[in-house]
């Protein structure tokens, strides 16, 4: 066997991951991706003395399992010349492009056939620090007819920084290059250097502050699995509820923002205010509108009581009535539809080749949803069926939000039936086991979140790797806007609503 098969949140001994020579490692992992139901959930390197260990994790969505394999290469040095150049995974399957760019940036591994070997985020501990973020090598077309438009890093609204460079022919976008990295905080290093569990889970909550439940659940599941602990039923219920509430709240806010970008004032106001009771409910539950402080490994400070369940039922009933009314109006207005339909399209073929996940995959007809393919917590009982759209345009991504909100409302009501009064329970003290590896997949509202952790000989955390769905999906936005008018960029961007800080880490 040249790979090991694991389930989501299963922890194994790190030594159990088979080590291959680079050629077999490349052929096997790129070979997996000839099937649509297999995709790469994480591919990363970790430095071990003079060696670099590459770990590749390919998820099989039909078998609900993940194939993990590894390869060891010599670690390049800055002052060395004539270091080998490798064949890239990317030349065989484009979806690896971002992972190989990261490996190149962090460790100096060179590829002779990678088509786009550019910096990912100008991480503080990158291999080559000769150039800074201001010197990013943008793609440039020499032409008298074309012009370039640079937007960012600071944007016009209250949003995170990132740079967009457009090559335009008049009003039409020929090419968009997205350059991130401004948000880099060194979060993966901090997860190792900060030793307290509370510090680490606080960091996990801050990976992306709009996906607190998503990233905190992924971290918590990793940590519990490494410690050999199965979370209590009430904790699993709370996490599943938080994930679905977060999905409804953010999707609603995004519908509001989409309305803003097409200047539909009524929709912007009503969807905007509909988010408020949902996040205020989160505060009633855990004291924080964005669920910071709620999800903790082995315990929770905030019980979900039958009284809260009753309260949530009332909140959701009022929400759904007003939501349905404004949605019915919104999606039947010709002036709305003309802006959303056939705008910012991503084809099934493109989405598959660049390895889209989550919303960006589901709106281009690819079924990729961890809740169904690698279920964790109470998703094992909910039997989730992903909603698929085929056109891959802004309207598909808008419709998906509407339908996922309706679906999540059904799920939450099912979950509420399980809520029962609980006695006070003891906090489970967790001690991670030695020399383990664990991979955790969680379907956040954007898509699949992947956390991988490795422990050392005393059970101490030695490596932590985070992958936000935005890693896969930023390229989808760049492809979506091609041949669109530049004035449609904001609506395309909002329809994906990708994370800058989740990508920059």
């Amino acid at each position, binding site marked *: 066997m040249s790979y090991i098969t694991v389930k989501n949140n299963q922890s194994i001994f790190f030594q159990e991951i088979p080590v291959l020579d680079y050629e077999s490692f490349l052929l096997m992992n790129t070979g997996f991706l000839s099937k649509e139901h297999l995709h790469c959930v994480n591919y990363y390197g970790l430095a071990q003395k003079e060696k670099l260990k590459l770990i590749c994790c390919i998820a099989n969505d039909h078998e609900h399992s993940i194939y993990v394999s590894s390869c060891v290469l010599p670690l390049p040095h800055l002052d060395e010349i004539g270091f080998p150049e490798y064949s890239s995974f990317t030349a065989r399957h484009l979806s690896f492009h971002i992972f190989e760019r990261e490996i190149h940036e962090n460790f100096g591994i060179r590829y002779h056939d990678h088509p786009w070997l550019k910096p990912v*985020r*100008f991480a*503080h*501990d990158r291999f080559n620090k000769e150039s800074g*973020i201001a010197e990013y090598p943008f793609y440039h077309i020499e032409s008298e007819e074309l012009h370039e438009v640079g937007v960012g*890093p*600071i944007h016009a*609204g*209250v*949003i*995170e*920084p990132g740079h967009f460079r457009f090559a335009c022919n008049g009003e039409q976008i020929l090419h968009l290059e997205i350059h991130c*990295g*401004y*948000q*880099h*905080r*060194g*979060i993966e*290093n*901090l997860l190792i250097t*900060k030793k307290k569990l*509370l*510090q680490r889970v*606080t*960091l996990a909550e*801050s*990976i*992306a*502050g*709009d996906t*607190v439940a998503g990233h905190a659940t992924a971290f918590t599941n990793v940590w519990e699995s490494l410690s050999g602990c199965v979370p209590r039923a009430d904790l699993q219920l709370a996490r599943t509820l938080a994930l679905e509430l977060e999905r409804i709240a953010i999707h609603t*806010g995004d519908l509001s923002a989409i309305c803003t970008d097409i200047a539909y004032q*009524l929709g912007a*106001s*009503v969807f*905007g*205010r509909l988010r*408020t009771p949902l996040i*205020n*409910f989160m*505060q*009633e*539950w*855990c*004291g*924080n*509108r*964005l669920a*910071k*402080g709620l999800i903790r490994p082995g315990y929770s*400070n*905030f019980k979900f009581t039958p009284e809260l369940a009753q309260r949530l039922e009332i909140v959701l009933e009022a929400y759904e*009535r*007003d939501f349905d*009314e404004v949605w019915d*109006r919104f999606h039947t207005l010709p002036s709305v539809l003309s802006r959303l339909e056939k705008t910012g399209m991503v084809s099934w073929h493109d989405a598959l080749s660049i390895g889209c996940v989550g919303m960006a995959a589901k709106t281009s007809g690819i079924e990729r949803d961890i809740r169904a393919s690698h279920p964790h917590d109470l998703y094992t009982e909910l039997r989730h069926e992903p909603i698929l759209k085929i056109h891959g345009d802004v309207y598909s991504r808008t419709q998906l939000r509407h339908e996922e909100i309706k679906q999540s409302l059904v799920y939450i009501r099912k979950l509420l039936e399980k809520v029962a009064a609980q006695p006070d329970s003891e906090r489970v003290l967790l001690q991670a086991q030695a020399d383990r590896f664990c991979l955790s997949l969680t379907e956040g509202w954007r898509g699949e979140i992947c956390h991988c952790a490795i422990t050392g000989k005393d059970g101490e955390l030695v490596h932590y790797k985070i992958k936000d769905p935005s890693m896969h999906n930023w390229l989808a936005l760049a492809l979506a806007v091609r041949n669109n008018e530049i004035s449609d960029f904001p609506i395309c961007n909002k329809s994906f609503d990708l994370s*800058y*800080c989740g990508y*920059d880490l």
Partner: protein
Amino acid sequence: MLKNINILLHQGKQFIRDVRTVEVPGVFRGRPVISANKVDAESLMEICPTDAIATDPSGKISIDLGKCTFCGECAFAFPNKIRFTKDYKLAHNLREGLIVKEGIDEEFKLDPTLIREEIYKYFGGSLKLRQVSAAGDNSCELELNACGNVNFDMGRFGIEFVASPRHADGVVITGPISENMAEPLQICYDAIPHPKLIILAGTDAISGGIFLGSKALDRSFLNNYKIDLYVPGNPIHPLTFINGVLDLIKKR
């Protein structure tokens, strides 16, 4: 048309009538109160993820809200010692003013001697702000956006976020300031005409928060300027921000 009117009618009145006195729902963690009860100070301080809890030589406990992530874990472990109230008026214009001391249960008041005279004169009726997210995690950014929605409606006080530093009277910084954002932040600040304000929104911006100690940060910008307002929170609550800014620009 009738459908639109129906939708409008069904929303009712969503705005918060008095942002100064409204009570927030649920178990909001606002200004903490520290009792005089004796506890094991070492184990209390050990809990905090950001070293926000300290003792003075006499053994009295204090909490620095500029470092606090408002996780509430200290209050769960030592309920007789620390209690988080629902007081959301947490903003201060003095960094030391964010430190809550043992036995003191008083509302925060800005230090009027530190507020420049021209602030009320120029900004009392209209304050336009530029927001720079300098490695913010998008939580404070979401809440700053919420300040302008129909619920909180900050615009009624003439306080708004604008799209260009050239239109702005000040900058609101979120996030711990990454080294990759240090230069863009400086450029943005320089582009704002005088006189101008600096507001730090959120624990990450005020102290670095949970990111303190990361080599990927560059917070040197903050050493060079006087900060006009600190707004604690993780993320800030819209009411904390709005009340803080109103206190800063009100007539004295």
